[in-house]
């Protein structure tokens, strides 16, 4: 399966995040020194380079920072998912992440739309996706 859908493969540093997602929890790192939140997971805080980061569970309330509707697959691997609802979302903690919006029509998407997390399992992996708050 050359064109199999790409899925995340955790690293030693990012494993707690993906383990959390698998258990339908969202774990973010917070810096012990500057108290800022960090995403994606790192060994060092991108705000102050501290190496003292603590994993904390967060509820996952988010809004759309921006989005696009890919009418043509962004890569052949996503041909079955057209149209792709690709978004950057901002969590209440201020961090941004890439995601897919589910349980929504393309016309529903707009910047600022309130979202809640939804966990989508594909094969052995679970992705953190978001859906509109009804």
């Amino acid at each position, binding site marked *: 399966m050359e064109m199999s859908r790409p899925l*995340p*493969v*955790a*690293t030693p540093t990012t494993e707690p995040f993906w383990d959390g997602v698998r258990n339908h929890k969202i774990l973010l790192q917070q810096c012990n020194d500057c108290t800022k939140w960090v995403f994606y997971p790192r060994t060092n805080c991108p705000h102050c380079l501290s190496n003292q980061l603590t994993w904390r569970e967060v509820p996952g309330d988010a809004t759309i920072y921006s989005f696009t509707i*890919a*009418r*043509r697959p*962004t890569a052949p691997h996503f041909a079955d998912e057209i149209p792709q609802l690709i978004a950057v979302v901002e969590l209440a903690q201020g961090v941004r992440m*890439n995601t897919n919006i589910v349980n929504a029509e393309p016309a529903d998407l707009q910047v600022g739309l309130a979202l809640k997390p939804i966990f989508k399992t594909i094969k052995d992996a679970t992705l953190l996706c978001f859906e509109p708050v009804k």
Partner: protein
Amino acid sequence: MGLRGEAAIVGVAQYENERRYAGEKNFFTEQFAELTRLALNDAGLHKDDIDGLCCTAIRETNMFAPATLAEYLGIHVNFAEIVDLGGATPVGMIWRAAAAIELGICQAVICATPARPVPSNPNPPAIDHSRVFGSTSNNWGSPQAEFDVPYGNVAQNAGYAMIANRYASLYGYDERALAKIAAQQRTNALANPLAVFRNAPITIDDVLASKMIADPLHVLEIVMPCAGGSAVLLANKALAAKSRNRPVYVTGFGEHLTTKSTTYQPDMVQSPVGPAADSAFTMAGKKPADIQMVQPYDCYTVTVMLTLEDAGFCSKGDGANFIQDHNLTYQGDFPCNTGGGQLGAGQAGLAGGMTQVIEGAIQVMGRAEERQVKHHDNALVTGTGGIMSEQSAIILEGA
């Protein structure tokens, strides 16, 4: 701070941009050598004048690209730089070469970006899965592989589309103004014999009627990949005086990088063009109103609009009005990508960004023939890499 304006572009070389290249295939080493020969001929200088080189990654080796090229060309250099800034690479090469010349370590530096197909390997290696998503790394351990790719945010279209949608939510979105960039640059391409689209005029309505790829970007707002390749030769004042062309001095530059993925930009609609262009203007002692033509990197129409705003030609949010108020053709009051840019001429790999450098140089030299801009003593050239997240800018001035 910065350059004194003592290093000049003295010669250029450009392969024709071709969507379906049917000619002889050569390795990047071979293309680099031929492009160097052409640029030296253009300048009227000799191989032994060259004592520096700037290159991109080359197909033939993952390491030691500069030494491989120096050996292949038979040039012994005091400065050997591989530049890895995506679309900002060519502009990044030019200022590095100018800086090396002004430091006195080089007298002439060749910067080349081969981008024609290479020969087919009789023993093809297995597919390299780390590169299946183009500019988005799928190497294990790469943040992109883990946090961009699984959500389909790969390559460039989705990122630029999100920049455009974010912009729309903050400032509104005049799609006709964006389409006008593509249409008027196409008018410029009609006067460029090397452009892919030299025989294909388009209107604003054509752009808006073209296929939607990733909302709000239509296919005619996105560059067309093609084969090509180019080289630029820079030299010090003494050699520039011997060149047959009007020397085009690099009087200012700037460079600024923030992220790889646009997701983590501090503000998705404030591009690093701002700091890069500010630095270039300050170094050259110029302001936007002094600039006679712009050659902004144009992978997408929205890239051009943001570049014009962030470089200070108009205020943030006023880009569409600015575009509607000006004629962007080579005959217009705001000449912009006068050879068609990459939207009109095609994007030949990393030579794409050299399109803007060479167009600026030949305009300032006064060699642009049918599309020659009337006032041609200076130009602003920008390069954009990543997802509008790595930027370089230079100001070129005629002697």
